């Protein structure tokens, strides 16, 4: 084997070495300040090597998607749909460029790219050829699994120059740990629509990392919903590598009982003239906890950057808690960047106004929660994704009358 050759096993071995060296995040680690993985580290669910759990196929956009099915962390080619013309699927080991990208991310200190690559349960690479427009969304559906096992899917997606891709992730496993690592390269002038639905079982811990890089004039519209799981961290890293890149990166988390939702984003403006816009909304009931950590870094030469970030949390219970840690690191001088974070409760005056019109308390609260979320929901550009997304929001709430 020549030293230039990169193979899946060499990448996995390096990931294992790195994970052995760094281990689980330390308690005092700044990046994991609000989210403890102690329970996970001690339970230590083992990577799935057999298909387990039932495949209950979640509803998608009626008849309008190509599904790729992962059962308990393993790829089920036999249950998956044929992909549209211009989209190629290969096993990860056969895609050297993808392996190199994954290896490079693993070199920087981070948990998921090490753990998940080392313990990989499935690895695929999707390539959307240059100029191809994929009308039918690709749905990555993660189902099945068992509490004692962990799923570690690694997925690389390459959206060729001037191509368009819409893909959705639907995570609804019964695994003890569900830790998907997804790397997406969005080529020059390409557009990407993305939604992620985190609907894991009540006992699942979900640690997902998605890394996006945007070429010149690339345009990404991404929305994540964190609704399931006992503890979850939806982490997204974005590099704006080409000028005139456009990024919309929004998320909603809805927490009940003792759920813990962590939404962590890291957006790096590496070049000039790019826009990023993040709208984060969280609603927390009972003893749920929500965390938003948002880092925006503007490199010294990334002039004319417009970076906006707004996080708002709504607490429905005295025992719920929300933490926000926005971080702006700006090294350029000609930029427009802002961030804001608020935590509040439902306004008594608003509730009274609705109730004075005969609307009962449950419905009035539901209307105000919907109103609180609507600004984030409105960020979803892809109509099919918006339609898929909305029922989860109303379904989460107290059932309405009539």
């Amino acid at each position, binding site marked *: 084997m020549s030293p230039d050759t990169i193979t899946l096993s060499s990448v996995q071995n390096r990931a294992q070495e790195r994970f052995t060296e760094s281990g689980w995040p330390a308690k005092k680690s700044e990046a994991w300040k609000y989210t403890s993985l102690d329970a996970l580290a001690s339970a230590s669910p083992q990577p799935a090597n057999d298909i387990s759990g039932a495949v209950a196929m979640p509803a998608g956009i009626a008849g309008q998607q190509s599904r790729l099915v992962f059962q308990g962390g393993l790829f089920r080619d036999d249950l998956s749909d044929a992909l549209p013309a211009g989209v190629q699927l290969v096993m990860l080991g056969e895609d050297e460029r993808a392996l190199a990208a994954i290896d490079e991310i693993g070199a920087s200190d981070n948990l998921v790219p090490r753990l998940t690559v080392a313990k990989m349960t499935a690895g695929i690479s999707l390539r959307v050829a240059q100029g191809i427009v994929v009308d039918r969304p690709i749905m990555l559906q993660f189902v099945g699994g068992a509490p004692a096992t962990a799923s570690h899917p690694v997925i690389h997606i390459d959206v060729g120059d001037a191509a368009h891709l819409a893909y959705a992730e639907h995570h609804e496993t019964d695994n003890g740990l569900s830790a998907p690592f997804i790397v997406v390269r969005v080529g020059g002038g390409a557009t990407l629509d993305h939604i992620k639905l985190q609907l894991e079982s009540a006992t699942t811990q979900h640690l997902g990392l998605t890394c996006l890089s945007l070429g010149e004039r690339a345009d990404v519209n991404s929305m994540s919903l964190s609704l399931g799981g006992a503890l979850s961290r939806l982490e997204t890293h974005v590099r704006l590598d080409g000028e005139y890149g456009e990024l919309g990166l929004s998320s909603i988390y809805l927490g009940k009982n003792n759920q813990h939702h962590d939404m962590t984003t890291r957006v790096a403006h590496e070049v000039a003239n790019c826009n990023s816009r993040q709208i984060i909304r969280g609603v927390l009931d009972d003893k749920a906890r929500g965390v938003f950590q948002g880092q925006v870094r503007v490199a010294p030469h990334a002039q004319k950057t417009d970076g906006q970030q707004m996080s708002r949390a709504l607490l429905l219970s005295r025992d719920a808690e929300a933490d926000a840690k926005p971080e702006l690191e700006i090294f350029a001088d000609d930029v427009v960047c802002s961030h804001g974070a608020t935590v509040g409760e439902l306004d*008594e005056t608003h509730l009274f106004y*609705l109730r*004075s*019109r*005969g609307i*009962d308390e449950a419905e009035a609260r539901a209307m105000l929660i919907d*109103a609180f979320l609507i600004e984030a929901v409105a960020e979803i550009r892809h109509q099919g994704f918006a339609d898929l997304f909305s029922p989860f929001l109303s379904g989460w709430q107290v059932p309405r009358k009539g």
Partner: protein
Amino acid sequence: MALLEIKNLHARIGDTDILHGINLTINRGEVHAIMGPNGSGKSTLSYVLSGRNGYEITEGDILLDGESLLEMEADERARAGMFLAFQYPVELPGVGGMAFLRAAVNARLREQGEDEVDQLGFVKLVRAKATELGIKDDMLKRAVNVGFSGGEKKRYEILQMALLNPSIAILDETDSGLDVDALKIVSEGVNSQRGPEIGMVVITHYQRLLSHIVPDFVHILSAGKIIKTGDKSLALDVEENGYTDLMENANVA
């Protein structure tokens, strides 16, 4: 049977007693004006009647059609026929106006055991009533009260009243913030809803509203009590001489 009976009503917020024994009987078809200076308890009375949280009723009762309202929440009272037109209508960003109106009307219809309105029929009904009140179509499409002028907010209150068809309507300082033209439109909207089945309580500081919405009875509220009751000429008397004389006479009495 009287429509609304307020019997020896005492109420407080926190440690502050505000209403000190109000007695008032309103029959169907009657319009009662309650006038009083600032701080006399006018707004408290409207909130206590409509069931806002935070007010403690220490004595007395409120009966609607003979049934006590005290144990009923604000939404239950509204469905039973109570309507409060707010002095300061509340802006609800993100709550679509049409969805709001429909939720309110359907809640009342369900209570009355009637079928809910279908969307198309409802839009037609709202448009017709809105036109009478000079409410433009684009206002109906916006979020509730968001971006409305003071006059538009008041018209929107009267639109809600027209759609909900209450048996008792409390208009809390509906004239505040209105210019002469807006006052006229709002008053016409209210007058068009007067009739033998509805009772109205018009709360106001000034007489000017009462020359548009002419009351059958005028009550002067001072320091949480009704100190004088008369007909519409009492309002003119207040306009002429102010509240001070009346309050002094009441103290002497």
